[in-house]
Structure formats: C-alpha cells, structure tokens
C-alpha cells in the first residue's frame, strides 16, 4: 500500500524528467531484501544439509538490495519506465487513483464481511460496489446483476462442482 501513495506523488510530478516514484519502488525492494535477509538469519541450519535453508534467501535478499541501488542510480540518470498499454488504457490522461482507492475499499469490505455475509451477499455487493467505483450510475440494475451473478455462481459451484462456498447469513435459505 506504500506503493499507492508513492504513485500519487508521481502523477503530480509528471512533467519532471526524473520519475521520483521509482525511488519508492527502490525503497520497497530494499525493505523486501532486508526483511528476507533478516528472516533467513532466524532460521536454523539442519545437519547433513550443506546448503541449508538460509543460502537461497541470503542470495535473493542481497540481490534485491543491489537492484534497489541500481534502480536509484538508473532513476537519477533519467531512466523512466514504459507503462503498460492496453485496450482500455489511456496513458495520455493523468492517473485516477481515486477510482483505484474505491476499488481497494470495496475489496477490503468484501474481505472483512465475506465470512459473516457469505458469498451470495458479499459477491453481489462486490460487483455493485466495483461497478459504482468505475463510474456506473445505474445502482439498482448493478445490484440486481450482482445478485444474479453471485447466487448463480454459488449454486454453480455447489450443484455443479460440489464446492460449498460460504453461505453466511443465508445459511439454510440457499
């Protein structure tokens, strides 16, 4: 989630040649590498195992630290990423992080409530919420489509594949 905030600053400083957000990525790599090294140091080495569980994470962690340094250097020298293009992607407009934030919020809500509410309700809310976040204005229709999809997928998995998704509140009704 630290990445998201760094990206926000990047969008604001778009005209500058140096892509400062990459420093955030470098920081993330350094953190990841450092933690991997720390985590590996807490492992115990078994006997009759000349390599042990530490070597591989030590190598990976060290290289991550090295890559973080290289990325900082490359960024200072003006290296900029080639952002991903696609069918529905318009790179000419500034990034809209509010929409992404809303989507993340909808997902966090789903994670928090899925065990209590069950897939049929959570899934419907997830779909309607995501559609709303992405700019749909037909709330009633979105909720109806969401309910149809979540209930259909619940029955599809239960009847077709024998996998009972969590029923939650609707236990006994579905």
């Amino acid at each position, binding site marked *: 989630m630290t990445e998201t905030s760094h990206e926000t600053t990047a969008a604001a400083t778009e005209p500058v040649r140096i892509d400062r957000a990459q420093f955030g990525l470098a920081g993330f*790599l350094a953190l990841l590498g450092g933690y991997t090294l720390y985590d590996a140091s807490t492992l115990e080495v078994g006997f009759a195992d000349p390599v042990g569980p530490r070597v591989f994470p030590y190598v990976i962690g060290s290289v991550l630290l090295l890559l973080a340094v290289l990325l900082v250097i490359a960024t200072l020298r003006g290296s900029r990423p080639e952002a991903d293009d696609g069918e529905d992607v318009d790179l000419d407009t500034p990034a809209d992080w509010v929409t992404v934030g809303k989507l993340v919020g909808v997902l966090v809500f789903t994670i928090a409530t899925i065990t209590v509410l069950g897939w049929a309700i959570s899934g419907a809310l997830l779909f309607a919420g995501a559609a709303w976040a992405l700019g749909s204005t037909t709330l009633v229709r979105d909720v109806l489509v969401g309910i149809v999809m979540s209930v259909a997928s619940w029955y599809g998995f239960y009847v077709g594949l024998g996998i009972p998704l969590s029923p939650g509140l609707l236990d006994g009704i579905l």
Partner: protein
Amino acid sequence: MDSLNLLWGGLEAAVTPENLLWAALGVLLGTFVGVLPGIGPAMAVALLLPVTYGLDATQAFIMFAGIYYGGMYGGSTTSILLNTPGESASVMTAIEGNKMAKAGRAAQALATAAIGSFIAGTIGTMGVVFFAPALAEVAVKIGAPSYLAITVMALVLVTAVLGSSKLRGFIALFIGLTIGLVGLDLNTGQPRLSFGTTQLADRLDIVVVAVGIFALGEAFWVAAHLRRTPLQITPVGQPFMGKEDWRRSWKPWLRGTALGFPFGAIPAGGAETPTFLSYLAEKKLTKHPEEFGKGAIEGVAGPEAANNASAAGTFVPLLAMGLPVTATATIMLAALQSYGIQPGPQLMTEQPDLVWTLLASLLIGNTMLLVLNLPLAPLWAKLLRVPRPYLYAGILFFASLGAYTVNLDAFDLFLLLIFGLLGLAMRRFGLPVLPLILGVILGPIMESKLREALALSGGDASGLVNEPLSVIVYVLIALFLVVPIAARFLLPSRFDRTNDPADDGPADGPSDDRELVDR
C-alpha cells in the same frame, strides 16, 4: 509409430459425448474470457482454473485444453477487431489484422486466424507427441546440476534477452523469487517469510498469485487510466475465406508453424520472437508487398500460426522436464500439480495414460475451437461492447471468486488484494510479468536442485559443474549475456543497423493503436 498408437489410445479414452461437452464448455468459457479486453490466455486459464476443481483428471484436462485454446483465439479476435493486442504475442496479428478489418475484411482475418491456429495447433501437438517422449528419455539422465543450469538458463533468457529493460526484468524476477520463498522450507520444515501466520507457512497458491497479478492488477491499472472515449469496433459478419485467401494463407500457416514450434520448445519462452520472425518472413516472401501495412492476409496467417505452434511447443519442456517457459505454461503446471501430477521425465513412464489423454485433449480442444468459433465470431465481437464498469467489476468478481474457492478462506482474498496492488505497481513501473511468475514457480525448483546437487558433492561447489551438460549450459548463459554487450561495444555501427528493425517492429504496434483509436 509407437507414439501414434498411444495417442490413439488417449483419443479413444477422451472422446465420449460427455467429454466432448466439457471440451465445448471449455472452449466457450475460454473464448468468452479471452475476448474480454485486457485478458490474455494466461489470465483466462488462471481465472477459469477453479471451474475444473470438481472434475476428474481426464475431464478437467479436456476442459482445460479447451479453455487454453479458446483463451488464445479470444486474444486474436480482440487484436483484429480492436487493434489492441491483449498480450505481446498478438502484436503482430494486430498490425495487419486490424487493417484488414478496417478494409471490411474482418471476416477473412478472423477465418485465417482460426484455421491457421487450428492447423498450427494440430501440427504442434503432433510435434509434442513425437518430441516430448524423446526428450523425456534424455531428461531422465539429466542430474540435478544440469537441471539447475537449465532452469537458470530459462530464467536468464526470459529476463535478460526478451524484455526491453534488463534492470526491470531482474527486479521482477527477484520479487518473484522472493514470493517463491514463502512457506515451509522443504528440507528442514521451517517456515520462511510467513510473518507468523499458518496460511503463509503453507506456501502460496499459484492461482491466488497469478489471478492477483494478472487479473486484479490489470483491473486496477485500467481503473486508473480508463479510456473515456469509446473504442471503435469493426462490425463483423460470418467468417469465411475466398479461394484467393486460401491460396495466400496456406504457405504462411505452415511457415509460421515451422517457426513457432521450435521457439516454444526451447526454454527461451514466449511467442514474441517467432511471431515477429514470421511477420518479417511473410513480408519478404509475399507476392503482394504493396498490401503489407494495408491489411495483407499473409501477415495475419503467419504470426497467428506461429503463436499457436509455439504455444503447443511449450508442452515439450513442460511435460518432459517439468519446466514451464511461459506464463500460461506456469499456470498449466500449477493445474497439473493440483491433480497430483508432477510433470517431469518420470511422468511419461509412470503415468503414460494421463500424458496421452492430455495430448489427445489438446487435439480435441483445438478441433472444438474451429467448429464452435467460426460460427460464433459475430457473437464474440458483441462482447467487446460490454460497458466498461461491468466488464472490470466482473473481472474483480470472478478474480475474488477464483481466489476464494481455493481454500474458502477470506485470507486468500487479502493475499489477492496484495498481489493485485503489486500487479498495479508492476504496470506502473514497467516491470514485466513473465519473469516474476516464472520466478515464483521455478525458484523453489531451483533451490531444491541446488541443494540436491550440493548434498551429493558434500557441499563442494564443484558439484554444480560435474556434469558436462551443466558446463555447456553455463557457457551458453554467459554467451547470451556477454555477446549483446560485447557486440554493442565492439561493433557500434553494425549493431545499430541489425537491431533497429527488431526494435521498430513491435514498437510500431502500440503507437499505431493510439493514433487509430483517437480517430
């Protein structure tokens, strides 16, 4: 001929009315998901993997093969009708394919893509039938040191040779390797990078990682940059080809197949190179050079065949050595493992029925694709008009559903969100996805081979190079890394000239796209 008999046995086991129904369902679902903008075959396969959970191995394979080919064809359909390839392998198809569509020949472009894919897929699968057992026989004798070397080579090639930025390739690779560390260490049973949770000690599920990075990451990225002006979609009729189209297509199909299969089969992954080479070859050999750039059918037929033949070729290292070289093959490996099947040299001798059923399934899925998708093409084209909020809300919905069904645990949804944000960051920072996903799955394999090799030699580093093959592979890796740098250093002028067209070709696609869409 032995292989043919075994394949025939696999076909007999696979062709029942019920199984054909699963194949048809797989093709429909695969194409449905593959046609959706922004979703490539790897993502389609990852998203649809949970659907096969309740089936037995044979039915699951058949459905899976359908999803696989369906997903790929769906991607070509999008490239041709929207001029915006969902994955790098379709870039070449989009160049001429969309020009054809704009000139009112969308039906012929889709038809030559479908028939070319079918021919290439069929020949490619037959290639697997002959080469995979042969390679497996050799691979049985390959020891841990050489296996380690080959894995390193696959990673180095994919990371350093294919991508546009080596630094970003290696960053993606090492993030992937770190993700691969999470979970119990296989030898000592100690959890690594588990943050004290039992769910993480139990190793990450590749489906959650892949769906998060591919599907959720894409949805987030699109949400941040959603195009507010509608895309132009070319209307399409029933796909068909005239006599002239057939005459001009069959040679490119075969040439594309010949180029694509070897590139898929060597661990240098990816269909980008063969599709690009095929495009260049057709441009050179065509009798209608004036049509290139304006919608030449050869420019669709060749690359499309190369793409599918290369996809079939990836099954050779996957089945014979357990070595995936593309993102899609990585998901396939995870899928096979979820059925308790560990691809590798022993698989051919220990569970031959399964292998031959899988290969027969590929042939069935491929045929089903042709039968169903030629008539259904106009319907798929309509899918491109789904309102964008519904499309990406649907992707979020199915991604969550897929991650949730793995363990029925809300924690997996949390992981999905984390990997979704990682996927978003990767798209923002131009980090390639393939090295990461290969790192996740090949990292643990590399580590176990490294420890196996060194345990045998008693910890002596010479244990890594005590097989001639491993030495050869390390020399090759060194050459791959050193030669491009040395060439740039020593022969600046010549290097520029040979490299320029290669750099211009693929770059043309995207810049073209923007221009056409704006209009």
